[in-house]
């Protein structure tokens, strides 16, 4: 617990009389350790601790009888500021359908998030239509179709008679665009007000696939692009978030597998690097395990 650690540090320091800036630096070392152990990116930690230090070396802390509590409060404040106060909701298009596209690394939880988002929005009176635009991963379309059947959503895997090309073939990319375009035509024809597009996992350093994603975005015309990030992602989170944000453009983040015990420092890193809010939290394997993200609960979790 950060409070306990800082309490211990300050008790040792008080023994020497009035607190100094150097004493506060010792305490901040503990803050740095706590954040690194939570997988917050090293560079983000350095910047964050520098910000905290500016406030922590003021009289507010140095002359306090409870310096540990003061420092923890500053850290929590700064953390919640960085994570974003209050809940960031989805924005909807003034001209339906609103299109939401999920993107991200392999296995982050995109396909599941697409189904979860559909379930969540259906529960709020929307009529979601899913487009299974991952033509690469074995049985990805089957996976979304199965989830659609289990929970009563329409899942589009391509126009009638559409033959899935070999994922490594040159036509795979154009076939993906065809699935998206034909899916949008169908969604409009059936007057769905929400369309959710699932895309294949890809590495942020795969130039071809990142280029393809920009083209898929062009075809989908999304109201929001959601970067799906696994809560256990480590230091690499900044590289991934930066690449997706700058190459493709994102509007928000879905943080998945928060039902585990990963501290989730990646959430802080992604927010710091992209400025985009985490909008939803994946809290389990079932389609109902999805909720609006709570930044202050996350801040507490990261601090440990």
């Amino acid at each position, binding site marked *: 617990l950060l409070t306990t650690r800082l309490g211990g540090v300050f008790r040792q320091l008080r023994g020497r009389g009035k607190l100094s800036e150097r004493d506060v630096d010792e305490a901040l070392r503990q803050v740095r350790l706590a954040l*690194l152990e939570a997988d917050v990116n090293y560079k983000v930690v350095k910047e964050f601790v520098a910000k905290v230090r500016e406030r922590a070396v003021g009289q507010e802390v140095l002359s306090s009888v409870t310096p540990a509590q003061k420092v923890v409060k500053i850290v929590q404040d700064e953390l919640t500021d960085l994570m974003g106060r209050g809940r960031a909701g989805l924005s909807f298009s003034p001209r339906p359908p609103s299109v939401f596209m999920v993107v991200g690394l392999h296995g982050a939880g995109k396909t599941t998030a697409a189904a979860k988002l559909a379930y969540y929005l259906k529960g709020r009176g929307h009529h979601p239509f899913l487009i299974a635009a991952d033509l690469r991963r074995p049985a990805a379309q089957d996976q979304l179709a199965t989830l659609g059947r289990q929970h009563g959503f329409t899942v589009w895997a391509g126009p009638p008679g559409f033959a899935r090309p070999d994922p490594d073939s040159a036509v795979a990319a154009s076939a993906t665009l065809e699935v998206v375009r034909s899916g949008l035509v169908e969604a409009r024809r059936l007057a769905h007000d929400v369309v959710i597009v699932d895309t294949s996992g890809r590495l942020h350093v795969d130039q071809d696939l990142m280029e393809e994603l920009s083209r898929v975005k062009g075809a989908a015309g999304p109201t929001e692009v959601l970067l799906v990030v696994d809560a256990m992602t480590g230091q690499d989170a900044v590289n991934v978030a930066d690449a997706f944000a700058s190459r493709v453009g994102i509007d928000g983040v879905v943080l998945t597998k928060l039902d585990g015990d990963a501290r989730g420092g990646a959430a802080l890193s992604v927010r710091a690097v992209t400025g985009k809010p985490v909008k939803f939290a994946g809290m389990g394997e079932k389609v109902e395990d999805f909720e609006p993200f709570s930044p202050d609960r996350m801040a507490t979790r990261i601090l440990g």
Partner: protein
Amino acid sequence: LTRNRPIDASLYEELADTLILGDTGVAVTTSVLDELQTRAGLAGATDAGALRELLVEILSERLGPAEELRLPPAPAAGDGPPGHAQGDAPRTAVVMVVGVNGTGKTTTVARLAHRLLGEGRKPLIVQADTFRAAATEQALVWAQRLGLDLVHHRPGSDPAAVAFDGVRAAVARGRDVVLVDTAGRLHTKTGLVEELRKVRRVLAREVEGAPHETLLVIDGTAGLNSLEQARVFDEALDLTGIVITKMDGTARGGVVIAIREALGVPVKFVGVGERLDDLVPFDAEAYAREMVG
């Protein structure tokens, strides 16, 4: 120019940055750099080049000697069906693949099957993920690409029953290695970890010494939580190896050092892509060089 740079505090800071950014963790980074400082002094290292070499050496040592899959010998052709046996007698080899959600288990099982085929073995894939949507469809695509058949049950069935059927089928069909793919599960879900223990018990009853390999598949992009995953899965199942996937990205997976040091579990394979041949044996020195840069 960088090789000849003199050794100073800022150089050590840079190395610390590199290790931390590689998900090595603060504890291991501190320990490694302390050792580096001591050995650099003893070796009389005078420049950055020498220091980096020494660091590569230390990391390779900590990752331990290379370890391959340890499987019982395959029965010779025409020996009749393998099964219960003693000591080093030929019998069906059993490999169990486990890990948290989305790390690359199913793809790894396909890649292992591909590798074993190349070694002249006759693998049987046992698709024991009875939970995930379209798990069997996914496995069937891989089985088709490999030219292999596959054992599976309907969704919602007991994975231990699938494992049981899988081993029986292997014996009946003259297969010499069974690869058991299991559903992803967070290590924090005790009931689901217990389910794996039951699968393991069933395998152990069916073949002497099974599972001969229990591999934890971890995601190369994950941070220090992989250590906690390894701790729980090792405690429950006695792991024989780690497979670290998605190492074709920019993450370095440094947490494997902590896993080896804390639990003694070696990395056996590295996933470097999504194709059948994108699984390579772990090479500690090559890994250390990649990390140090």
